[in-house]
């Protein structure tokens, strides 16, 4: 099998305006931040984001790349609601279609299993099923590839098998592009994740194009000595990019811990439009590329974040925050 290793610029060029996208990781954990900075540089437009927000989604919103968001969680965790998401949605400038966390899981599970839908009670009783809050059609109108989104948000039906009463049929969740940031990938695309897999192990099978950014590209044969320890098969991966510190300012288990001052600074500055623009100039546009971003951060700052075995993060007893 040929090598799938490309540059970050090349990989991101494959993303089209209007694509429906999914990012691996969650909140501050293993998110493809470097890849998203490159998307901002390349000024992708009218994207539909599926899944969760946090820094990657928030950057796209602030930079005007995102048209709609369909997901279950738009928080930067301990650092507050994703600030651009908050500002844009409260101004009425972003289409949001809320689904449940289990919905997201089951939708990706269905796609991973090649099934059009699955039955659950996951949102019965809640406003997730409220027709007045159903923005799926609006998101669909924006999508370049409309067939990727289902015709309707859900359907109720009586369970014919176990007398469970009314259940909700929930459709598969599919994407044009999935970008995951992982610890290690082989040059053919086999990838190994440490810590929470979040949705990555399902999502890579739910997208037409899969980009893996990895802290390290390692020999494919090395990963194939213990295929039980790999989470992503090469057959579902289209491009591999080596991006050390590609999840900064978040954490990448066994590699580095989160950069709390950076995250706090982001939250504070992005509370206003001007603040975000300044931040983006400083950390995305002025640095030109990920190498520039790393150099601006500085080696000693990064070294302080480096994970300590066996914990996989920086324990507070060792100077972590």
């Amino acid at each position, binding site marked *: 099998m040929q090598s799938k290793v490309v540059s970050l610029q090349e990989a991101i060029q494959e993303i089209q305006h209007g694509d429906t996208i999914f990012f691996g990781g*969650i*909140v*501050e*954990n293993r998110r493809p931040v470097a890849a998203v900075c490159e998307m901002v540089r390349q000024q992708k437009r009218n994207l539909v984001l599926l899944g969760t927000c946090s820094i990657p989604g928030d950057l796209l919103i602030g930079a005007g790349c995102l048209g709609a968001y369909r997901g*279950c*969680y*738009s*928080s930067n*965790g*301990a650092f507050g*609601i994703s600030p651009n*998401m*908050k500002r844009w*949605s*409260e101004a*009425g400038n972003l289409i*949001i279609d*809320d*689904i*449940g*966390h*289990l*919905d*997201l*899981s*089951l939708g*990706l599970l269905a796609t991973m299993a090649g099934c059009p839908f699955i039955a659950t*009670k*996951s*949102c*019965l*009783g*809640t*406003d*997730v099923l*409220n*027709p*007045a*809050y159903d*923005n799926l059609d609006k998101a669909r109108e924006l999508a370049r590839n409309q067939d990727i989104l289902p015709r309707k948000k859900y359907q*109720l039906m009586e369970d014919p098998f176990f007398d469970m*009463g*009314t259940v909700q049929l929930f459709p598969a969740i599919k994407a044009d592009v999935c970008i995951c940031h992982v610890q290690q990938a082989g040059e053919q695309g086999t990838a190994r994740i*440490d*810590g*929470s*897999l*979040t*949705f*990555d*192990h*399902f999502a890579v099978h739910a997208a037409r194009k899969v980009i893996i950014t990895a802290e390290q590209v390692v020999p494919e044969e090395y990963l194939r000595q213990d295929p039980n320890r790999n989470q992503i098969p090469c057959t579902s991966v289209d491009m591999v990019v080596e991006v050390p510190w590609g999840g900064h300012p978040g*954490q990448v288990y066994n590699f580095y811990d*989160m950069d709390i001052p950076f995250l706090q600074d982001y939250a504070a500055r992005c509370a206003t439009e001007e603040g975000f623009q300044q931040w983006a100039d400083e950390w995305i546009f002025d640095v030109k590329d990920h190498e520039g971003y790393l150099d601006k951060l500085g080696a000693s700052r990064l070294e302080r974040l480096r994970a300590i075995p*066996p*914990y*996989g993060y920086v*324990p*507070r007893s060792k100077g972590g*925050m």
Partner: protein
Amino acid sequence: MADRYAQPGEYTPTEAMVIYAARFLKNFDGKKGLIGTGLPLVATQLAKKLYCPNMIIFVETGQYDANPPELPISIMDSRITYGSSWQMGDPEGLFPLSRDEIDFGFIGGAQIDKYGNVNSTFVGDDYNKPFKRLAGTAGAVDIGVFARTTVTLMAHQKRRVVEMVDYLTTPGWMVKKWPEGDLVRREELGLQGGPSAFVSTLGIMQFDDETKEMYVDKLFPGVSSAELQESTGFAIDVSRATETDLVLVEEVRMLREEIDPLNIYRMR
């Protein structure tokens, strides 16, 4: 023995909330809980150390029987991985709920109403232009639908403890039946469980067996019924309220020195 007890003022209202929540979790020693992000995580850590060492913790980012060596900054923090029995992803983290393995769910939120419904999606009356956009559903929907019972933790403020939530994220006792959205008892939808308690910064609220409406079960030391009513957005039944036992010095010490020495959660 006097110095065994801390007096109001020697701890913050947030610390009181976390401490009494930890005590409430005594009910769940040996049980399986799915713990939401934020202060529930802190209260759970305190409870495991002091009151229920055999509580089994699931986290929705895919850890089973989590035993984090130090306080995670959120439920997505990879501090939860090391020491857990199994580390998968979010789907596997949630499936114990839908499989009916979870004895209790423990969450925060932005609004709670008199039926124990919780809102963590948006505040306002226009979904497409909210007064305040919140984090969204996350596990809060699923915990409310599937767990055998739930406990909610929230600062007690008039704008938070309301007649009816702006958006029903976590189903409490009276929920919406679609497609019409009629308010019905949760069991009518085949949902088991329902909330057992709302632990606030002022007291512990429970729900009437008949009406399923919230009432005050306990007031924290130094909190009056009037103050609690004043901080509540609807007329709440305070007739059954009694005062809790005092906070222990050891509880405050544990929280400040061992659980969150860096005050990451800004409890003080």
